[in-house]
């Protein structure tokens, strides 16, 4: 399942966290279930905004788990 914006474009999962399935968070983000595998920024297809009964959906990809240290050491440029 992927988090998408109001135009069906895939975004990071964070804005959809805590949103019930099928619900529309503030008119901006909601979950999309199934469909073609695609990356951030792409438009979803082949799936649905409503989960299919009996199908297990899992969160897919999280990002931003690398890179934090660079912000701490602001003098980065490599060696």
């Amino acid at each position, binding site marked *: 399942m992927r988090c998408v914006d109001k135009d069906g474009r895939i975004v990071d999962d964070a804005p959809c966290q805590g949103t019930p399935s099928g619900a529309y968070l503030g008119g901006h983000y909601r979950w999309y279930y199934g469909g073609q595998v*695609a990356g951030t920024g792409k438009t979803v297809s082949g799936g649905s905004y409503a989960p299919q009964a009996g199908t297990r959906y899992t969160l*897919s990809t999280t990002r931003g788990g690398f*890179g934090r240290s660079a912000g701490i050491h602001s*003098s*980065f*440029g*490599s*060696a």
Partner: protein
Amino acid sequence: MFNTNADGSPYWDESADYQFTTREILAIEQATNDLYDMCLAAGQAIIDRDLFDRLRIPRRVVPLITRAWEAEPPSIYARFDFAYDGTRPPKLLEFNADTPTSLLEAAVIQWYWLKDVQPDADQFNSIHERLIAKWRELKSYMKGRVLHLTAVRDSVEDEMTCAYLADCAEQAGIATRFLYVDDIGWNAERRQFVDLEEQPIGDLFKLYPWEWLTSPTEEFSQHILEVEPSMQWVEPIWRMLWSNKALLALLYEMFPNHPNLLPAYTTEPNLLRQYVKKPILSREGANVTIVKDDGEVRTAGTYGAEGFVWQEYVPLPDFGGQHPVIGSWLIDGVAAGIGIRESSGLITGNESRFVPHLFR
């Protein structure tokens, strides 16, 4: 391509050039190859004698390092930094074995300068050809079909270095894809790192240091062990043995009379009267203190939590008030060429100028 520092001063500077004799180039080449062999011996000693604590390498990554050292996964490049006046032997200042940069300038830019400006001279520089040859050799060892390259955002130099290495890999017949470090995804269902297209990352060149990747600060550090069987990193994690300035002290301990080494210690200055105190883990001359008879020089920064190394101070050569440091590149463990950065100060920083060289 950047040629100007943030303050408007030139980075690529061809208002001057360094001219070597063949004897001097051979001295640098020999020092580079000899020191590489010594670093191999030091790496083995760290593992055999369990010296990880001395290098402040966290215990949680020791098994990964040890297995990678034994397995010898793909490894591309590294750079020694020397002080060399053409008379005394080149003296090792530092070893940049994990994320060295100033590569494009050394491999390509100064070569074109030579052909345009000094076509009858030569240059110690086979970096470009050796990089392509090395990628070509590594192609059969890849875990996947695409080489991913990654660097931090907002660093033109790092992105350019990745672009250049990607170009070399492409010339070797390897498909490449770049993404920023914070765009690397963790797919919890497939238990793998993925790119922005959700494609698995099987081979990753990272211009991001291992001490950061493995830090608890990085949420994804917990997955590095999990992907060990299915993913290759360039440079491999065992480079943590070398990208650590405590290595300088170990080298001096193992080879105390070697002409290319300076006395270095991981405790207080010991018998050194003039010395350079550097963080074990740092970059671009940050948090360095030079103590000389005529005073002290310090640079600011956020490094030093892991401790320091004290290295005997050796004055850099002075050419009209400019002080050059020779960066000697190894490609596939062999001396391949040099690049020179100079500054008016005593500490090479991110905005020191790159100056071309030749020899006759």
